[in-house]
């Protein structure tokens, strides 16, 4: 999987209350509704500023806090191509994988990327590159199980497929 996009940078310990404030929780969401609240806990205008294909770059422990899937799902819906940080909150990591959002861990990456930098990521060869500064880093290999879920486009597609296989096996 090959990704190229402009970076939006955020700080350390960005919690999910900031990424998707609970005042916007709804029992169900209209298409585009989650994306319209992305990051508003930090920057109210972010949903208007961000473009499809952009990359979110966080500091250490990005996405810590609550289990709300909306944090990752809103990024996916906004067309964020990947989220990159030195480390992530555990629940955010799971949710990102489950919604099919490429989530990339790279040590000190937040120090190497500035707002607006053009970033290139090659998931198959395991490389991240800052096209402005020339910075390059190898990415730790993703667990094959996680990569498969991202390739599938998320856990929903995976689940649909297994259910379908079970139905066929019964017939």
């Amino acid at each position, binding site marked *: 999987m090959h990704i190229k996009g402009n970076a939006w940078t955020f700080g350390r310990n960005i919690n999910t209350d900031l990424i998707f404030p609970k005042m916007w929780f709804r*029992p169900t969401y209209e298409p585009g509704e989650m994306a319209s609240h992305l990051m508003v806990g930090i920057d109210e205008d972010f949903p208007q500023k961000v473009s499809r294909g952009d990359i979110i770059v966080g500091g250490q422990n990005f996405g810590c806090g609550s289990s709300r899937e909306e944090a990752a799902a809103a990024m996916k819906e906004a067309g964020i191509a990947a989220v990159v940080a030195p480390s992530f909150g555990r629940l955010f990591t799971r949710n990102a994988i489950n919604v099919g959002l490429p989530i990339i861990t790279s040590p000190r990456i937040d120090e190497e990327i500035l707002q607006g930098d053009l970033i290139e990521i090659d998931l198959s060869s395991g490389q991240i590159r800052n096209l402005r500064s020339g910075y390059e880093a190898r990415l730790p290999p993703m667990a094959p199980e996680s990569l498969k879920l991202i390739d599938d486009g998320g856990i929903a597609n995976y689940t649909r497929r297994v259910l379908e296989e079970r139905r066929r096996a019964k017939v």
Partner: protein
Amino acid sequence: MHAISKIIALHAGRESVEVGEIVNVVPDYVMLNDRGAARAADLLRKMGGDKVFDPAKVIVVFDHHYPPIRQQDSVSQKRTREWIKEQGIIKFHAGEGIGHVIFPEKGYAFPGALIFGTDSHTVTNSALGCVATGMGHSDIASFLALGYNWLKVPEVIRFDLHGEFQPGVYAKDIALRIAQLYGEDAAPYLGVEFSGPMVARMPMAERLVLCNMVIDFGAKTGYIQPDEVTAHWMAQRAPHSTWTAQTTDSDADCGRIVDLDVSAIEPLVAVPHDLSTIRGAAELGDIRIDEAIFGTCTGGRIDDFRVAAAIMKGKKLAPHTRMMVNPGSRETYVQAMHEGLIDVLIEAGATIGVPGCGPCSGCHQGMLAPAENAITNASRNFKGRFGSPEANAYVASSATVAASAIAGRIVSPATKISQ
């Protein structure tokens, strides 16, 4: 293997697992809260699943938005009630309190168990010596459809606690001290075990506070080795249940062991807007408290009410301070009434709300206005969590919250008690 690995192996139908390995597991129970049930049911349908794989494993708890104050939640809860019936889910609790308080109370959490929940504070249950972790809605929907989900076997960090508490110090202060020493990502993706002579003497309520807080160190689950305190709790709570505690083979199964002397810990406070800055309650200076927020899955148990009532008995809230109290569970509420603790709080000027998440869910009575300061025995002080994003929330122990509510500013309960 560590006991956490053994529990995961057992639920994966395997004899052994390795740290870092991803395995498919079948949990004993999955908790869906009101929001979780609505979202997971919706996602389950979208995944093409019409039936919950094993309804006996599903426990639905309405705690965040119950009773609803928005029509959309009333509609959603009505739909969930219908869905529960349709799916044959029998274990359903509405208005009985917070999932993470009633799970241990009702014996749903037990030694050796594996528990998932649609809420990050599901880790609270791990105080019973089980593996308990939060998950997102798609994760849970996938489990509902298939009957299993994936879990990575975590490395373990163990905190060995010893020494004696100073007056006015509680388990909450230990958790804040760990955040102070090691940061909000003290234990990313890890299992966090608490051990040592200090833990051996701790009642279950204090153990639940410790394990509740591990999510805010980034952990996957907590763990406390079941002992006599655990066995006694289970005998009282679920006398007919059978359970088997797992044990860790050797110290080598812990990735890291940290020694912590609790004697040096003073009453602590996390200042806005996260747990990265921790200060001594006595050294904070004159911070005006507009509202004390008391309850939640961290501080809403009967033990917390006993501590608060002892401090507040015969006293009044400071004239400029209000106090919002939500018992963690219906059982806690009734017990606190029997013991006269609710009277003490009401006579002091507190407002008692319904058992549930209270203002910590951001959806109940007691919201903060811009520029207001609150002190709470909840686990988080994130921006906007209790209402206005321009409000400030300070996180502390139940004792520090009660003492500060009376003083009208942040004070150490140690000084208050000795007055």
